């Protein structure tokens, strides 16, 4: 275990343990962490595609996506690097709605993004009001450094599952570990069970 550096606090504030998962600390800023350079896809070149093991693959342009029914969500988010940000507000299209448009019996999906990022999820983790494709943060268009034009939002899992710059969801019969899952992170990633790494 690392020794504690007396008096070192960094820039955070004290935490309510009932509100915050184990091992997390609360931040007021919004750290930008990325595995690669920030894509800057213009919205006139953007599309969202849901395909793979689906009844009918669908694709939406940016304007078509903005015309879909959207919800405002206020939630806490938890990054596996230990920061948590409380009470964040997003607006996006629910995965429940998007799935109704395609129909699937597959149990797994891979979300893929501009750049080479992927993450995998189980169907049950993105249904029943637990996941969105979000394009507004705090009422403003999502900035590229935070995943704009649109990112996946799955706040009940560690935030690496909320793929920035999402461009598609591919449903699969088998579970296929994504970028960080294949590198040693936990396949599921429940912050309340502290499922950070594959051997947790």
């Amino acid at each position, binding site marked *: 275990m690392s020794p*504690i*550096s007396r008096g*070192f*606090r960094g820039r*955070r504030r004290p935490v309510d343990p009932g509100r915050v998962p184990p091992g997390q600390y609360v931040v007021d800023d919004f750290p930008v962490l990325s595995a690669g350079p920030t894509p800057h896809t213009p919205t006139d070149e953007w599309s969202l595609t849901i395909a793979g093991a689906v009844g009918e693959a669908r694709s939406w342009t940016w304007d078509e996506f903005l015309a879909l029914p959207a919800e405002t969500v206020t939630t806490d988010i938890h990054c596996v690097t230990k920061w948590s940000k409380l009470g964040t507000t997003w607006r996006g299209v629910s995965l429940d709605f998007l799935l109704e448009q395609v129909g699937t019996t597959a149990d797994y999906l891979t979300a893929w993004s501009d750049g080479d990022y992927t993450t995998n999820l189980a169907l049950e983790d993105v249904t029943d009001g637990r996941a969105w494709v979000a394009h507004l943060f705090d009422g403003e268009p999502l900035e590229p450094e935070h995943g704009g034009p649109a990112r996946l939002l799955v706040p009940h899992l560690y935030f690496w599952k909320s793929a920035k710059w999402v461009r598609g969801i591919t449903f699969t019969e088998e579970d296929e570990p994504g970028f960080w899952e294949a590198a040693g992170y936990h396949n599921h990633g429940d912050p309340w069970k502290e499922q950070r790494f594959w051997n947790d």
Partner: protein
Amino acid sequence: MEGAALLERLRIRRAITWRTATVASIADETARARTIVLDVPDWPGHVAGQHLDVRLTAEDGYQAQRSYSIATAPEDPRIALTVERLEDGEVSSYLAGDLRPGDEFEIRGPIGGHFTWSVEDGGPLLLAGGGSGLVPLMAMLRHRAARESTVDTRLLVSAGRWDEVFYRDELSALAAGDGLVTRYTLTREQPQGWTGDSRRVDADMLAALGPAPRDAPRVFVCGPTAFVETVADALVGLGHAPGAIHAERFGPTGG
């Protein structure tokens, strides 16, 4: 420790991993910078120019990590870092602020093979330091002095103000010795009667300092990225071989 024995010891590599360092003493260098002397059990020794990774852990588990050059010569039994408090720097404001003797943090090192110099490597030397970039160069100068080397060495120090320059008295004393020429440029404010330079480093300043490219000096440039890029480009423009220029950039890793 004799140079040859030190080099031999470094060849027998030890695994580099996080270890606990205890603060032995702290002294002010300037209004914003402090030199921190550390106790590290079983310290394997280092070569001038190398650095440490420093990791702080708060009680809630939050960790922050930065890199700092080792300020002391390999001959010095102490390991010391010189840290300048940066505005908004969460690590530097702790290390050069709240830190007290007896406090602990983790270090990993010594790190770095390409930005190092030992007397055995020979000269002449051209050293250019911007702000905190002077720290690893000071380790090289202290090593040079400890070995009583008189190798032709030209040092350029760039800072905003005179009172921001680290190790002023020691540099004056060293410059009075054999073979070291030191030139300062203060870019923001100069004391009354200042006869040194007062502009950002440029090719003319470097050409005037020397050594000339035909003397094939080993060049070490350290400091903020913009400073390093400017100096390296200017030196290549003057005819120095790019391969002879060792650069260490203090990038935007925070403070």
